[in-house]
């Protein structure tokens, strides 16, 4: 009996060890930011901002100094009203540098319902032991 149990454990471990160690890859792209302070409360999907897309086209300092985005996650109060008036995202997303907000709400408001605001993607670190 013990023999069988042991052999069972052995075979199971062969199956489980590789599963535990093998790469599991369902994650957003590193630097994707979910903005959901207001979106869902106002009946829209959460906004997803992809850093990877924007840093191919603009250096960090363009948005993080000239456009007025604070570097610290969560410290920017971005409202649709301001964007339409040409602030924040609206400085480029005005139909001249990039498509304007009326090109399709779902281009920005593309997140799954219920997402929490913050930076997502792989390897995020939000405190010791949280990567």
């Amino acid at each position: 009996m013990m023999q069988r149990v042991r052999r069972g454990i052995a075979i199971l471990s062969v199956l489980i060890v590789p599963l535990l160690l093998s790469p599991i890859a369902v994650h957003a792209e590193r630097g994707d930011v979910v903005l959901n302070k207001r979106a869902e409360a106002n009946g829209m999907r959460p906004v997803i901002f992809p850093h990877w897309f924007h840093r191919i086209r603009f250096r960090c300092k363009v948005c993080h100094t000239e456009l007025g985005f604070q570097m610290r996650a969560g410290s920017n109060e971005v409202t649709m009203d301001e964007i339409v008036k040409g602030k924040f995202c609206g400085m480029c997303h005005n139909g001249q540098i990039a498509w304007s907000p009326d090109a399709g709400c779902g281009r920005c408001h593309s997140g799954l319902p219920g997402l929490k605001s913050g930076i997502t993607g792989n390897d995020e670190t939000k405190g010791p032991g949280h990567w």
Partner: protein
Amino acid sequence: MVSRVGAGDLLYPIFFRGALLKVSSKLKMMGSRRALLALLAFGAALAGEAWADFVPIMPGDPSVDTRRWLRLENDGIHDPTDPDLKDLQEPGDALSLLPPDYAGNQVHWPTAIEKGYINPRSTFSPTTKVVNFLDLDVMRKNTSIMPMVLFPHKKHTVWLDCANCHEQLFKSKAGATKINMWLILNGEKCGLCHGGVAFPPTECIRCHSVPRPASEYVTDER
């Protein structure tokens, strides 16, 4: 979704009966504890095979590119039912053309700029004239048992303006800013960017890059 050698593919052959019999007769000879250890080692070896996919690719190395990116609708945050999702660029379409890395976006961003793969705009407004670059390395020696940290201003000012870090996050005066890993891992100091956007703090040796002379290590022996 993502085509990748999974552990399951590698396990498949051992289910052939003949092989299984051979293995089990061998195990009987070894005794159960040693057999268990052997099986564990075997399992770990299989996992190692699965990880072989993930060998670090050095920037500029033209070896086979094994990088894969999830499509937006599969990445766990985008809503597949969003009708406008099709208008967005897929990460793989853009990032696969850039020099490889194994961490973060799987792109070595500094090389992407240096080698001219990308040339992101430095200013928003054409009237913004001031573009600050600084070539100054700062060595931080107070790193306990870890190799010392060499901070290259040059790599940072390619992307950032002085004001992004100074004087809020970091004082310009050398040694005036308290920095430690606790703060960084909590998303403060370096962690403000390296926590979620720039390469992750799990890449220890990219910052802790300068070995200390053996004589400088403090040990309990003395």
